[in-house]
């Protein structure tokens, strides 16, 4: 069998695929962050907590109300998104005229409070959530056994990412949105309700986090800390892609998943740090990130 640096090529295919799966989560989460930062200039540190809330929503729907995975995929993001809009209306709105740092501090504080409350209520070991029966089992691809659910994660994440990119970059609605962030006064003058649009955009970004949470529930334990573990990596992804660049978030999300996956084969001890090494290198060469525009 052929080998690359002592690793059989077949095994390498498997690892690449796994990297893509993990990359799907990075992409979904960093996409939400990029939408919120790119359009609203808010560094949304509650994103990890909102991802966790999505997973808990799915768990709650299944265990308390008997609502299955597929409905959760719609209902949980709506619920989490609505919660996000509530935060935006009542708290974030007050901070738009101030420095980014205030928004960051507020959202960071909120994340700690939300996580603390969930941990108090549900403990730290988390709750189990089963894979939906339509997606149970898997396929033998020859070089690896691919669980059906993981394949679904890649597909669903790609579709969501591309649809979001299309709406924001290629439709009239997206054009309004981008215009509203460039020059809110002018857009308002054209009769568009800018504050409502901003609230909805924040809600959408947060809903993406909730969506990722539901997707993650069957793979990882539904755990109050699941977002805290992920959020730092996701921020690195956004920084590497270029703060606010939607395409950048998607491409780097998948790309870094793959890089991390390969590190797990060649030097597993470094797999937690490799993303930050990449971040440091990118920032030295292109301070605005790979896809970011220098302002």
């Amino acid at each position, binding site marked *: 069998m052929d080998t690359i640096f002592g690793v059989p090529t077949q095994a390498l295919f498997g690892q690449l695929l796994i990297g893509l799966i993990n990359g799907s989560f990075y992409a979904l989460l960093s996409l939400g962050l990029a939408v919120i930062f790119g359009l609203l200039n808010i560094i949304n540190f509650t994103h990890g907590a909102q991802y966790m809330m999505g997973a808990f929503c799915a768990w709650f729907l299944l265990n308390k109300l008997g609502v299955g995975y597929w409905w959760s995929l719609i209902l949980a993001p709506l619920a989490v998104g609505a919660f996000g809009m509530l935060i935006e209306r009542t708290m974030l709105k007050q901070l738009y005229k101030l420095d980014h740092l205030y928004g960051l501090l507020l959202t960071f504080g909120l994340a700690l409070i939300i996580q603390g409350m969930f941990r108090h209520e549900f403990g730290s*070991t988390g709750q*189990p959530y089963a894979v939906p029966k339509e997606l149970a089992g898997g396929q033998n691809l020859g070089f690896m056994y691919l669980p059906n659910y993981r394949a679904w994660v890649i597909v669903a994440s790609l579709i969501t990412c591309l649809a979001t990119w299309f709406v924001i970059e290629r439709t009239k609605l997206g054009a309004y949105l981008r215009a509203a962030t460039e020059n809110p006064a002018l857009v308002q003058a054209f009769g568009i309700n800018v504050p409502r649009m901003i609230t909805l955009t924040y809600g959408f970004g947060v809903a993406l986090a909730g969506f990722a949470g539901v997707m993650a529930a069957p793979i990882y*334990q539904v755990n109050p800390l699941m977002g805290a*573990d992920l959020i730092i990596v996701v921020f690195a992804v956004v920084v590497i892609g270029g703060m606010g660049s939607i395409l950048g978030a998607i491409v780097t999300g998948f790309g870094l998943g793959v890089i991390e996956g390969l590190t797990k084969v060649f030097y597993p001890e470094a797999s937690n740090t490799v993303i930050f090494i990449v971040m440091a290198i990118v920032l030295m060469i292109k301070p605005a990130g790979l896809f970011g525009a220098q302002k």
Partner: protein
Amino acid sequence: MKMKRTVLAAALLALATGSAQAQVSGGVVKIGVLNDQSGLYADLTGQGSVVAARMAVEDFGAAKKGMKVEIVFADHQNKPDVGSQIARKWYDSEGVDAIVDVPTSSVALAINEITKEKGKVFIVSGAATSDLTGKACSPNTVHWTYDTWALANGTANAVVKTGGNTWFFLTADYAFGHALERDVEAVVLKNGGKVLGKVRHPFPGTDFSSFLLQAQASKAKIIGLANAGGDTINSIKQAAEFGIVKGGQNLAGLLVFLNDVHALGLDKAQGLVFTETFYWDLNDQTRAFAKRFAAQHKGAHPNMIHAGVYAGVLHYLKAIEALKSDEGGKVVAKMKELPTDDPLFGKGTIRADGRKVHPAYLVEVKTPAESKGPWDYYKVRATIPADQAFRPLKDGGCSLVK
């Protein structure tokens, strides 16, 4: 004249009672529960250990005996630097006499050193590394509940003897994982087994699929999980997802707790075999303890770490009572001299190296059909007697053993 004599007597009396009290520093025995209150080990240790320590003080009857005992707690966040800082503050300025629990071996090793330096008492329940009674042993430390050697001895022996003779390790990349992997590997090799490979994953981890795939490719019969808590839960869950057990390989959870089984659910955890030194459903006494514990801890049942904190604190207080002093080194010497006796671990002893010895149990997780409800999870497959459950005194390389 008479007046003068009375004053003198009063002064003498005051002096006498003063010196009697001075033997217990500050007039109060202060015990610090130092563990993970917020991270992945919080359910295994956390507030449960605080509840257990308070129960021990109550059952010791400290109030009736006129002994003032105070329990404080703090969160070391699984970080050695954070833990060390808290320990120094506790010992130096807050009058803490003993630190108990301390999961996460890297943190425990740091506290072990600080406690020795300050001449206080360290009763370990949560941490696993057998180095605490081996090359890092200390005259101020008692390692109560379990250690990596005992886990390896119980689980790996049983697995190798039933045909699991080729192993691949999935190891948490810090002191605990390394120690567990080392001790298990020794048992596997001793029994004629082979280790085909190992991978060290960052701690804490979330996605283990990449490592599991490497384990799958190794074709080893047994995948040894040298990790704990959330890491073990996710490893087991994802191994099921990737069809590893269906493909003919078996998982050996080397450190699994009652709470992990609760979180996984019996459908995922059933059939796992591992080593524990305590199970709440062993006898009437353990059941009574569990009932009281659960009432104070949101219904959650105690695991072996909680049990160890309870028994350790109880024995510590007995030693102070016998010695009438809370001076660190002397109390630990007294703890070793007195035989131990508590409702959870029964009768036992503490060896010269600080190792508390008691029986260990090889347990198997019940199937959903066998379980009568939440927390009814284990069948005890074998009992390993106290004299065989832990590393022989002479093999540890502890400098206290002559």
